[in-house]
């Protein structure tokens, strides 16, 4: 019945909002708690501007891999064990071509990504079209590419790379507004203010649209609180960057990747196909989705990102060595599961995996500052992974 009056907006209760998003919020809250804990435990060293930048640089490779791994896990709990070896293989080729053959850096980086794509096609073919379980194909890939890495490097470490290559992981965007002398870089501040304005505008627009379409929205108080929290976080982060050396180049790459893949998984048709396939492959097939193609693409994509991670890591350590990338796959997989991905597929988000990777990264970094040995670090990380997933299982059972 049309009454002619606009209907009042429907608000979800706060309890409901929290309950339905408990996983996402819980991990974010956990991340903040962990950061606060280490901030106190390290006498404020954790969030010193230089260390904030360091956190990004240190964990860039996990963040890159976690994005790709999320897609793999989404298709049905498949993982890619070969990413560490693929990263090492590409890094070794980088070293060979750039250090020994003196090839052009830009060209070689593109070549490295291309090699990643070729490796992805190779593994994707066996996984998607021959239907050998991904676990086995990538286990084989893990051995295969580790072996090839050793063959290329002959067991030696290649170093040093030219500065232009190192810049990928240790360079900064030059200060575009050099007003305050050399110590304070204004670029991040300008970027974050602009980003804040755009964010507020977009969020309000989205909310209005939802209300117009009579969809449920969170109450205004919570909406404003949420928005404020995000704004404060962004601007504090920008301040930290500004106080150190500015925006790292790798952060720009990460931003583009995270934004791009978030959009891809939530808004596009192929992104939806990945979720559908993981949810129920048979139903997806009968709905006209070429699930082989989806699986092939996901593994192709993973290897390209593994190549990128290898390049970023080689640039950061300024070397290519035989053991590069050892256990990368485990870090990436752990990040995805801490971030709420389901081991049976169909559930998980790119943002969740990023939060998961940051949780691991802050744990690593904080414990290192505190002087806790690498042995205990591993133990604690293992425990955190188990607890995060246990919490997930518990909250799912409870909501039933």
């Amino acid at each position, binding site marked *: 019945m049309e009454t002619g009056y606009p209907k009042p907006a429907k608000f979800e209760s706060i309890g409901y909002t929290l309950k339905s998003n408990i996983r996402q919020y819980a991990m974010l809250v956990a991340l903040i708690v962990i950061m606060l804990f280490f901030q106190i435990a390290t006498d404020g060293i954790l969030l010193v501007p230089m260390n904030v930048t360091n956190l990004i640089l240190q964990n860039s490779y996990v963040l890159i891999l976690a994005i790709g791994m999320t897609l793999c896990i989404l298709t049905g709990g498949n993982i890619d064990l070969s990413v560490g070896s693929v990263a090492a293989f590409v890094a070794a080729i980088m070293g060979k071509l750039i250090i020994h053959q003196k090839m052009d850096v830009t060209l070689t980086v593109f070549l490295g990504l291309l090699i990643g794509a070729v490796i992805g096609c190779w593994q994707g073919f066996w996984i998607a079209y021959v239907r050998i379980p991904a676990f086995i194909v990538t286990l084989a890939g893990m051995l295969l590419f580790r072996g090839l890495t050793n063959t290329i490097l002959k067991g030696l470490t290649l170093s040093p790379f030219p500065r232009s290559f190192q810049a990928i992981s240790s360079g900064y965007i030059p200060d575009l507004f050099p007003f305050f002398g050399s110590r304070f870089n204004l670029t991040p501040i300008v970027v974050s203010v602009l980003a804040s304005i755009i964010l507020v505008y977009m969020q309000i627009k989205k909310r209005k649209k939802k209300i117009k379409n009579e969809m449920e929205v969170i109450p205004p108080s919570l909406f404003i609180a949420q928005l404020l929290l995000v704004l404060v976080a962004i601007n504090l982060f920008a301040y930290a960057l500004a106080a150190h050396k500015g925006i790292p180049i790798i952060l720009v790459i990460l931003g583009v990747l995270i934004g791009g893949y978030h959009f891809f998984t939530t808004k596009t048709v192929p992104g939806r196909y990945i979720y559908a396939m993981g949810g129920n492959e048979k139903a*997806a097939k009968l709905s006209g989705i070429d699930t082989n193609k989806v699986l092939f693409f996901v593994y192709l994509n993973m290897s390209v990102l593994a190549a990128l991670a290898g390049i970023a890591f080689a640039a950061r350590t300024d070397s290519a060595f035989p053991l590069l990338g050892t256990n990368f796959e485990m870090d990436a997989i752990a990040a995805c599961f801490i971030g709420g991905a389901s081991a049976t597929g169909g559930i998980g988000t790119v943002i969740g995996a990023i939060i998961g990777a940051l949780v691991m990264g802050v744990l690593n970094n904080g414990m290192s500052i505190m002087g806790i040995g690498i042995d205990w670090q591993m133990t604690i990380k293992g425990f955190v992974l188990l607890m995060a997933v246990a919490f997930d299982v518990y909250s799912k059972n409870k909501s039933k």
Partner: protein
Amino acid sequence: MQTILEMRNITKCFGPVKALNNVNFKVKAGEIHALVGENGAGKTTLMNVLSGVHPYGTYSGEIIYKGKHCIFRSIRDSEKNGIAIIHQELALIPYLSIGENIFLGNERAKYGVIDWNQTYRDATKILQKVGLKENPHILVKDLGVGKQQLVEIAKALAKDVQLLILDEPTAALNEEDADNLLKLLLELKKTGITSILISHKLNEVIKVADAITILRDGATIETLQVDRGVVNEDRIIKGMVGRELVDRFPKRQPKIGEVYFEVRNWNVDDPLIEGRKVIKNVNIKVHKGEIVGISGLMGSGRTELAMSIFGKAYGRNISGQLFKAGKEIEVNNVQQAINHGLAYVTEDRKTAGLIGIENIKRNISLSSLKKISKRWVINDEQENAAAINYRQKLNIRSSSIFQKVQDLSGGNQQKVVLAKWIFAAPDILILDEPTRGIDVGAKYEIYTIINQLAEEGKAIIFISSELPEILGICDRIYVMNEGRIVGELMKEEASQESIMKCIMQSNRGRY
């Protein structure tokens, strides 16, 4: 006869939803007691309370079994007392043998070491009791659903069951197997075993039950005694839906146009067994606005025919031609089939029709994503609008379009599958058992939707195991047997007898 089981004032809530509200249920020793009601009426929940799936303390009320108050904390507790429940989804392990399955969790063992001779000797004895003539060494995966059902019952008998609960035991069986199962229930009754039978098939219920309890919206409506002779299907339906259902099939004036879809000389081989033909030289035609039924026993090749037509989703070495509006079309995969305006609503909505962990909206849009996207980017507003529209049109009972489909009842899940395919705007719809396992009210709604689609001029192929349904809504019926079309009947000449006659005659011709 004395009372073996009494459930008093059982109330069970799931969150804010009251699934059972003060239910009272009384079963006499040695009878077959049927429990009927629409989907969501609370039948399965009640049985789960009884068998300890919902443990003591998660519900209120009391259970009195053999004169004693019972506290069941798990299924093991109820099993110890001789209560066994056989669920809709069978709980057998496919790669274990019949014998191993029968004694699973109840092994014939001494000091933890299994005595295989005794296991198989006992298994053979129990198999005789349930009338299954199979070697107990055979793996369960190699049995048909009907025989698996019998293994389940054998498993219960191995535990000295006194109260056997069967949840929709015949839903997945063909008529012959279903008949055998019902006979077995009567046999078991003679040996003193009490059974509770949950079923949507009212004719079966009337055939075997001594008493029928009707549940509606989580409450007991009434218990009918069958021996008094006043119980018929209409009487039960009236209790289930709370009103008289004047007609089980909605009326429709067929407006049949020219031939629209045609399958010629269709042959399909089994995808697993080399050289075994599943579909043999099938020719069928469907007119615009016509509902064409395909009838036949389970295993006659109906689903295989439908799926092989739908983008070769089943089988191999497929040969034959498809024509749409007089022109031959090439359909080699599901995407092409959809592009040519074909749609196939699967008989198995849980494993092949829906993505349970996704919401209603995302399920409805799944086959039509290209239609609501631009350069691969999905338009949220269009997607929501479509979902809201179909939720309303098909009366999908749910909290919102964001509810997960796995939380919906069977009938509403089926409506989501239908919505998905209607949204894909097909010209030719193949519906495979679209009303399986759903209640009378939802069935009526689905028939109405199908009639509307026919009214819009779509060509509809309707596959069903239930003869009354085929007779009730189809304009023309093909009868299938052993992968062949063995008869074609117009609505006027079709009856249960004439359909069965086609099948029997074709069998005789072969042997």
